[in-house]
């Protein structure tokens, strides 16, 4: 069996499991859209706020579907012994992780598309000005947060602790990275922290693609920060990986 076919079968298996898990479906699909509707309904009359919110929620959804979901998922799979069991089969490791990552990426892509479409249809935000840049920054965000999610799972001691660990990172990061409001008014210290982390740069890139028309070339600094985190995340994910 070719490795592409193996990976595809593994991905379909993961997709089937995903839709059977109500809490995964809630955190990956319902929660970002719920936040979008709630916050947007407060600011529906303010187009500038919507221009912040749509790319912000899209960036948050990328992080939630990859970083948070993979950190949760891997902690569960490790604690249950499922990782160990799969490792005892001839399934190649790249195909197994391809399935896990691919499923997270599929969620991220669907979310970004849904948010952009809702932004346009419901709230009258223009269609993305630079679709290529939208694709590039979504892809960069997915790779970066996917790697960081796997790396972070290595640090989570058990599944009971997973929600605390993940949200200890996720919630502060979304608040300082300009998901719900422009982050320009943050205190300098928090602004500096946000600048050093990848989410703010993903949102900047998405904002350029959707709202201002700034392309990849205009956001090379953001690309560099995200790529650096992606490399660091990949290194940490592999170096400290625990099968059991």
């Amino acid at each position, binding site marked *: *069996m070719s490795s592409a076919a*193996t990976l595809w*079968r593994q991905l379909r*298996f993961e997709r*089937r*499991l995903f839709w*059977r*898990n109500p809490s995964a479906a809630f955190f990956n699909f319902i929660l970002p859209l719920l936040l979008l509707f709630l916050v947007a309904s407060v600011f529906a009359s303010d187009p500038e706020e919507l221009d912040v919110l749509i790319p912000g929620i899209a960036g948050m959804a990328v992080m939630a579907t990859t970083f948070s979901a993979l950190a949760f998922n891997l902690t569960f799979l490790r604690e*249950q*012994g*499922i990782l*160990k*069991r799969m*490792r*005892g*089969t*001839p*399934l*190649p490791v790249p195909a197994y992780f391809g399935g896990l990552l691919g499923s997270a990426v599929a969620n991220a892509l669907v979310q970004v598309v849904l948010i952009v479409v809702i932004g346009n249809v419901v709230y009258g935000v223009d269609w993305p000005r630079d679709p290529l840049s939208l694709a590039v920054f979504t892809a960069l965000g997915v790779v970066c947060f996917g790697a960081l999610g796997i790396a972070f799972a290595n640090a989570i001691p058990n599944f009971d602790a997973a929600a605390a660990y993940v949200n200890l990172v996720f919630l502060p990061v979304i608040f300082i990275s300009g998901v719900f409001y422009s982050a320009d008014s943050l205190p300098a210290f928090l602004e500096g922290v946000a600048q050093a982390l990848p989410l703010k740069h993903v949102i900047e890139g998405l904002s350029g693609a959707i709202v201002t028309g700034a392309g990849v070339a205009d956001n090379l600094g953001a690309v560099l920060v995200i790529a650096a985190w992606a490399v660091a995340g990949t290194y940490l994910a592999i170096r400290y990986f625990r*099968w*059991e």
Partner: protein
Amino acid sequence: MTEAAIQVRDLRKSYGRVEAVKGLSFNVGRGEIFGLLGPNGAGKTTTVEILEGYRQRSAGEVTVLGHDPASRDRRLQERVGIVLQSCGFYPRVSVGEAVQHFASLYPAPRDAEETIALVGLEEQRKARTAELSGGQRRRLDLALALVGDPELVFLDEPTTGFDPAARRAAWGVVRRLGELGKTVLLTTHYLDEAQALADRVAIVKDGMIVAEGPPGELAPGQPTYRVAYDSNGRRVQHETDDPTDLLHRLTSDALARGERLEGLAVTRPTLEEVYLELTEEDER
């Protein structure tokens, strides 16, 4: 091929300064059911996990179906089935889907339905794995290990926590593996399990093999016979490897004194006695 399915020579494994396995050597022939028997913490699981490719050995030679398991060669994984000691599964998958999916991971799998029937889970085929009882989950573990049609099956304490009926059922499956010509390496801390299933047994204690052989012939070295009788209300016991001579002396003396040797018995130690004698230090 005539070489053994598993060859282990002077296997050692240390965790930091603690040596869990201290120079094990044994062979498992093709088609043989081999039991590693020993108390918890004796090093059985460490040994099996080195053979399965999960752990790296510290020293020694290990060959599994002609491969070094530490290389994690996919061609080896395709020929081996593993039942781990305690291991969960995706909770939202049905038994049928789980077995089907695992079948798809192997180049020449068994029929999924037939495998489900082999372990007796036909009625649970559509049940999600989270709904299964402990014994049923263990049978699913077996089905998942067997569906790839492996030549060699590792069973790490396959019946721990089973009720007696479930144990008997699992034993039936292991015996059928033997009939199918599979090689089985079984670890257990249940004596009766080793006695009922294994062609040969190695008793492991503190990371070393203290006795090895067919379960019926295992003896703790000398003496191999025990002669006992009652005298003046006390039980007198002698141990010997020459019961003929001992009995002759005992009976002659008794006749000379005009006594009867009440309750005279000549016994060979059972596997249980051998096992308890060999491993008793752990209980002190």
